[in-house]
């Protein structure tokens, strides 16, 4: 090999530099020189032998990917790009997560103020946090849809059973990854959502030995504290990503090994031709699929950033307080189904028999369901069962929400709708200036003050849902007395609620407590129409500082 000096002497400096550059490019791409790259960009046919296959043989990154796909699997159907998108989200979460780690210390108190620091003192910190949190929720959705797609197109069937099994493992890892991150902000939402979701651990039989000790291991102490936060942090940033990474490669190795299954109608029943792609049906990775994936990367990035900036805001409630359980604690939406089941049956039965049995059934499903045909028409039972299962999960999720079977007293429900302890509040979102001092009734129209008027309309709507009329006609509904065993009136109901306040009175009082802060007091009163005793006489107080910006949330 001639030295650069020899080349310069032979061709002159310019030609020698071009030749050297070409050589460097070829080394970096493991086989494509400048001309090959330009020909790929131009869309010309490759020369023979095809240099665009060399990176797949010699380079590390491209050897992971197949050099060509069957034309049929490069369209949106049948993959919908969901597997690719899952991988993209995994990478996305890793990157945004590492950036968030720069400003985070896993210690109660510090952790919470670190999140506030990210929101208020790190340039674009709120965006970074929203991107990570939004990404986590989308990732759960995408992975679940990927699994659904695999089921519907029958791609779990021979020879891809083991691919399905590793995919199930990745689904579980995704759920646990997302959930383990839930605790880290150390706010009320995090603390109580995780507390209720892992409360089943304590009951694992035999509870005296396994339950008690397992609880100590999971929470690091009898209840969540510094030890527990550190453990969950390590799970979230180290153990689970590592496991997910390892199993991703096992999963993807199998995907490449067996090839993408063709759309069910394209093959004879019982055949798998994914690895026998005729020359005419090939789409090469370089440049076609590579371009396509770059486009999807660009689009997904754009959508995530637009979503996080304008349509999504990661919640942050008050600092976790182990002594104060907020009303209506909920698990994250992707685990709400389990909470629904826990409301119906014993928690040992659900958490240690039903859910594990269901999980095992999912893992081994392809080894049991061995019907040869992947065609939709031949799989009516399987597809119907899957649709029923989805419906069942949606209903379970609804049962997991506070809508189902968790009704507090009617006055507390009204307060919760208008002035909740945490989260978006109709009353506090009224701009500070619009909170005129005084006493206002539900539905009252305040002249020249549309914002407060709208809030008072909401007040009336909430009262309508939770009160009823016995003697008066203030509210929308008549009272339906509910009798107890002895025939006495136990409580009153209306169309919406199992318990309503008869002939209730309510008002909102706005007072100035400091020169730049107002106090909002919601008061509700109701009397027993028969005895005249006070049934309800409560109020709920909240404060609104001039700077607190609830209106932009």
């Amino acid at each position, binding site marked *: 090999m001639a030295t650069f000096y020899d080349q310069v002497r032979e061709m002159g400096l310019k030609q020698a530099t071009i030749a050297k550059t070409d050589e460097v490019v070829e080394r970096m791409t493991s086989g494509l020189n400048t001309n090959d790259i330009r020909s790929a960009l131009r869309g010309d046919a490759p020369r023979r032998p095809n240099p665009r296959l060399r990176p797949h043989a010699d380079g590390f990154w491209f050897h992971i990917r197949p050099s060509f796909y069957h034309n049929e699997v490069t369209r949106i159907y049948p993959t919908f790009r969901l597997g690719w998108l899952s991988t993209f989200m995994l990478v996305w979460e890793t990157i945004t997560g590492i950036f968030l780690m720069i400003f985070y210390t896993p210690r109660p108190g510090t952790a919470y*103020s670190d999140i506030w620091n990210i929101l*208020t003192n790190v*340039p674009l910190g709120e965006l970074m946090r929203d991107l990570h949190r939004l990404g986590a929720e989308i990732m759960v959705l995408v992975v679940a849809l990927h699994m659904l797609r695999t089921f519907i197109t029958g791609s779990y069937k021979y020879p891809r059973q083991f691919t399905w099994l590793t995919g199930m493992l990745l689904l579980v890892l995704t759920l646990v990854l997302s959930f383990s991150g839930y605790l880290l902000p150390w706010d009320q939402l995090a603390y109580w959502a995780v507390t209720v979701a892992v409360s089943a651990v304590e009951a694992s039989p035999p509870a005296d030995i396994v339950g008690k000790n397992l609880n100590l291991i999971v929470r690091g102490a009898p209840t969540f504290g510094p030890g527990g936060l550190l453990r969950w942090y390590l799970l979230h940033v180290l153990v689970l990503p590592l496991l997910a990474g390892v199993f991703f490669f096992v999963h993807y190795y199998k995907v490449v090994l067996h090839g993408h299954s063709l759309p069910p109608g394209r093959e004879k029943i019982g055949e798998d031709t994914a690895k026998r792609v005729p020359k005419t049906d090939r789409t090469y990775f370089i440049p076609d699929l590579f371009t396509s994936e770059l*486009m999807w*990367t660009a689009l997904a990035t*754009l959508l995530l950033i*637009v979503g996080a*900036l304008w349509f999504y805001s990661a919640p942050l409630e008050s600092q976790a*307080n182990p002594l104060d359980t907020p009303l209506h604690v909920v698990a994250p939406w992707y685990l709400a189904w389990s909470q629904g089941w826990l409301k119906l049956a014993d928690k040992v039965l659900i958490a240690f028999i039903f859910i594990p049995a269901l999980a095992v059934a999912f893992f081994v499903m392809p080894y049991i369901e061995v019907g040869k045909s992947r065609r939709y028409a031949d799989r009516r039972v399987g597809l119907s069962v899957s649709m029923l299962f989805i419906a069942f999960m949606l209903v379970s999720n609804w049962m997991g929400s506070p809508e189902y079977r968790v009704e507090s007293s009617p006055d507390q429900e009204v307060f919760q709708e208008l002035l909740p302890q945490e989260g978006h509040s109709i009353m506090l979102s009224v701009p500070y200036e619009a909170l005129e001092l005084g006493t206002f009734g539900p539905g009252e129209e305040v002249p020249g003050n549309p914002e407060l008027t709208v809030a008072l309309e909401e007040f009336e709507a909430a009262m309508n849902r939770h009160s009823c009329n016995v003697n008066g006609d203030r509210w929308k509904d008549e009272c339906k007395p509910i009798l107890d065993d002895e025939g006495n009136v136990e409580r009153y109901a209306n169309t919406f609620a199992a318990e309503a306040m008869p002939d209730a009175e309510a008002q909102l009082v706005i007072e100035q407590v400091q020169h*730049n802060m107002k106090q909002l007091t919601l008061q509700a009163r109701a009397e027993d129409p028969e005895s005249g005793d006070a049934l309800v006489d409560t109020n709920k107080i909240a404060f609104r500082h001039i700077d607190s910006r609830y209106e932009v949330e």
Partner: protein
Amino acid sequence: MQVKVVIGTIAFMLVMIILGVAALFEPAELAEKTDALLGRQIEKGAALFSASCVECHGVEGKAQKCVDFAGEEKGCVGLPLNHAPLLCGEPSERLLQVGWESSKAHFINQTIAAGRTGTLMPVWSESFGGPLGDHEVEQLTNFVLNWGEDPALCGEDVVVEIVEWPESWEDLPEGDAANGPDLYQSNGCNACHGDPAGDPALAVVGPWLGNIGNDAGDRVPGQSAEQYIYESILNPDAFIAAECPNGPCAEPSVMRKDYGNVLSEQDMADLIAYYLTLQSE
């Protein structure tokens, strides 16, 4: 293929523009969010204050109108916090009196966190065995400091007007000593002067008043006992008693200077009559 290249390019350019615009607004946004954070801390502090502090320091923090857990009105035993000498200036008058070297915020935070030994002020921070987290003590501190941001309290043109009082106690109406004990409690005298019937050592700040009925006449030569008490309440700095139960009394006096605005003439007469009955020897 060309379509994909164009879509990809447009998407990346849009991302670039969006991020650029977001970055442009970010400094203002951060400043507003920082204010919002403080505002919300003050709100949380207000909720804590109305739950735990109004019993002794009063609903407005002026130690004037105190309510107990059940909402009943009762006497205030705490010091006023919504109070210019505590909150105005850095260091404020109060910090100078107690010789506090650090900031006002630290003074308030530390007092809430660790309580004040020898008074009824309990420990609040869980670091010292109390019920509140350190972040909650911080929220309370911010709430108390927020009174000091009020131009009506600390503004430059605020003049505290003390109501004019007659020269001599003799112009007051007839006093009734029986009302004394209630007034003594409800105006917070006991917070500093302790229980006149109890242990003098519990009068942690001011002199103990258990024997004031005997002492008052001898303090200032030529001044009657009644006049001495009258003047001491209206103008605590007029004469400083030599010995307080826990060492020499502070000079200038740390007593509130605005009792002239708090008491009615009848209250004053009743208190004077009551004090004269306090004789232990």
